[in-house]
């Protein structure tokens, strides 16, 4: 046991006496006379139900969360009366801009509304009757193996940080729970798919591990958010789109369609988070730009790695024989991703003058 409360309630006669008194019928009902803000939040659009936006009112809403949270370090829900003596639960992310994005509550609502179930909604019959070549299947299996690792990292980021975040930022914490859930589902389906396809999982490889370590070991949450939500989720979105475009199998169409919508939510949060942060603390842009440049360096190690490039070329061509001729198409895919990624960096306020990714793809094109 690491924590021993100052007061041993078990041996505190006051605790027992009060409970006995209550059971004798002597209720104080002090909770009925508290000075609180009374509200009646109902669905603004009954078809949509009671959304978080409907409860964003007064002291209960997120609009009134201060930039620096000094008044609550416990798990008391935002807006509740805090009696004296609430303990400090160790939260060390207490600045709103460090984690907040104005679209987080809506993204949380969207995540719940767009839940899908890989076990039942993927047409696994189609995987049992694969019509394409064994080589193509192995190429797809390799990409799914990479996606499994990436999805695990995308879930580990919120897992690593959410319990550090002050409880006042409740909707944001809930969105991070949704991210963990989305990522776990993507890891699950990305692992099942190659096993069900018969070739089994492909290889783990060092350049991918280096990339994921760069993302996971980001020194603070804003750096982790920029690298995971803008860069890592961005490349996952590209890989999913490409699998969906190249694979003739119906199961892959379903997996990639659902997978894209899930990772897109993380991208959307990442961009808005950066904007919110830099609006409050513009001086942090320099360190964020430097960090994302560094993770881009690890990303190009992955994009040019023998396994990932040749697997993409194989999947693009549909066969090993045609893979060499597919190099320009893979390069075009990288160009498309790079342009999207740089636009996102720009929109987020963390644009780069010396993007390693831009330099790499330009080199590949010439």
């Amino acid at each position: 046991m690491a924590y021993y409360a100052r007061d041993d309630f078990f041996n505190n006669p006051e605790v027992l006496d009060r409970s006995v008194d209550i059971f004798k019928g002597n209720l104080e009902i002090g909770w009925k006379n508290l000075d609180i803000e009374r509200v009646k939040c109902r669905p603004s659009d009954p078809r949509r139900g009671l959304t978080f936006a409907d409860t964003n009112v007064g002291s209960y809403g997120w609009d009134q969360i201060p930039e620096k949270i000094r008044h609550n370090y416990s798990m008391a829900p935002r807006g509740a009366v805090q009696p004296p003596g609430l303990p400090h639960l160790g939260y060390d992310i207490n600045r709103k801009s460090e984690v907040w994005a104005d679209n987080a509550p809506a993204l949380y609502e969207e995540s719940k509304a767009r839940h899908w179930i890989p076990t039942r909604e993927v047409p696994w019959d189609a995987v049992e009757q694969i019509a394409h070549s064994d080589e193509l299947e192995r190429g797809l299996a390799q990409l799914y193996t990479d996606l499994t690792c990436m999805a695990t990292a995308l879930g580990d980021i919120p897992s690593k940080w959410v319990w550090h975040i002050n409880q006042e930022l409740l909707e944001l914490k809930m969105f991070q729970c949704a991210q963990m859930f989305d990522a776990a589902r993507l890891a699950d389906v990305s692992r099942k798919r190659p096993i069900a396809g018969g070739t089994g999982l492909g290889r783990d490889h060092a350049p991918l591990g280096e990339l994921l370590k760069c993302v996971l070991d980001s020194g603070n949450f804003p750096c982790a958010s920029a690298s995971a939500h803008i860069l890592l989720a961005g490349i996952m979105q590209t890989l999913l789109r490409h699998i969906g475009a190249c694979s003739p199998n119906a199961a892959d169409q379903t997996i990639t369609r659902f997978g894209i919508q899930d990772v897109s939510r993380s991208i959307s949060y990442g961009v808005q988070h950066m904007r919110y942060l830099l609006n409050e603390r513009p001086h942090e842009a320099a360190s964020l730009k430097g960090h994302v440049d560094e993770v881009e360096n690890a990303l190009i190690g992955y994009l040019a790695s023998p396994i990932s490039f040749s697997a993409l070329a194989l999947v693009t061509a549909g066969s090993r024989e045609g893979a060499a001729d597919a190099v320009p198409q893979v390069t075009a895919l990288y160009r498309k991703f790079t342009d999207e990624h740089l636009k996102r960096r720009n929109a987020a306020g963390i644009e780069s003058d010396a993007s390693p990714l831009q330099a790499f793809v330009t080199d590949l094109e010439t």
Partner: protein
Amino acid sequence: MSYYGSTDYSYNSDFNLRVRDIKKGNLDFSWLDNARDTVEIRRRDPRRGLMLEDVEVGDYAVENTPEVVRENRGLAPRGAILAEGSDQPDLGPSLNKKSDVWGYRVQRYWEEAMSRQWNVTTDVPWQDMDRYEISDDLEFAFCQLCTLLSEVEMIATDLPSKWSHHMNSYFQEVKGFIATQCIDEARHAEVFRKRALANGVGLLRASVRGEHALKGILEADSYSEGSVFLHVLGEGFILTLFRSSEFISPTPVEQRMFQLVMQDEARHVSYGLQHLKYLMDNCPEVRPQINGFLDEAERHLTGLFNPDQLESMIVLGGKGTSPECIKRGIEVVGAFQGKQIQEYFHRAERAGLPERKERSPLLELQQRMLGALQSA
């Protein structure tokens, strides 16, 4: 402070040569030449889709995973071909023993959680609230109960998430289950918060004693200790509380809320039991440590019996604040409290810790209360 990869590709001649090779179409397919044998799986029940248990074959099966995972230090899924030795970046997982995290039937809990997701926004009949009249006394009492529940539910996201990213990726099912628990508990905090704000009152008073118990959970020394406190003891108590709260709910809207949260909570308690059972079966030497931890954890939990919660439940149970109502409410809540403790002992016994009943301070507390009440 961040990790910098071993290679700066902007200034690396090997990398430049590789890019030149790529441009020439010289691709390396050695990974394809050395691919592993094919694998055959069979869906046990095609109507259910492709379950995790269906892909538990050969190297992919958890039963073929050793108790201590040494070879995987990255994020590779179980069954992938690993990068060789020193080539593999170390991502530093610290929970690498199966018995540290595993629970019997965890694959089934994952599948169940996936198929039983629900949505607070649309699955609670908020539009029906205007159909029912609730007295001010009951509304305040229910909001006080919602405040406590909204307060305690988020601990069940913070504790598992604190440990999940430390788990070896070979235990993907446990990491996955934990992710489902996090979203379940977020939903629980959401439903009680929304309900408190929906009917003219709001959130009421937080619980000092309850928060000390939450801190005890969050600061457990190991995942297993945290799990036994959270899943078996804490969520077990809350599950009984949910069941009683459904019984004393003022309208069918609140009853529906409790029906929905109960199925999630029961799954979390079941995982906790199965993890504890797995731990006791495979690592019996930790029994004294777990018992010592529970001795203190149960003392912490007595803090959850706080006056605001007791009073609000008595008012809800008796349907008002008149002396007759209070009397009826005390009978309801007294029975429920005894049940909470008995059900906990029963669960502990099923998980392989029958000695809890003998050494637990909870029983003593209950007896002290009963004694005091009788003498009064």
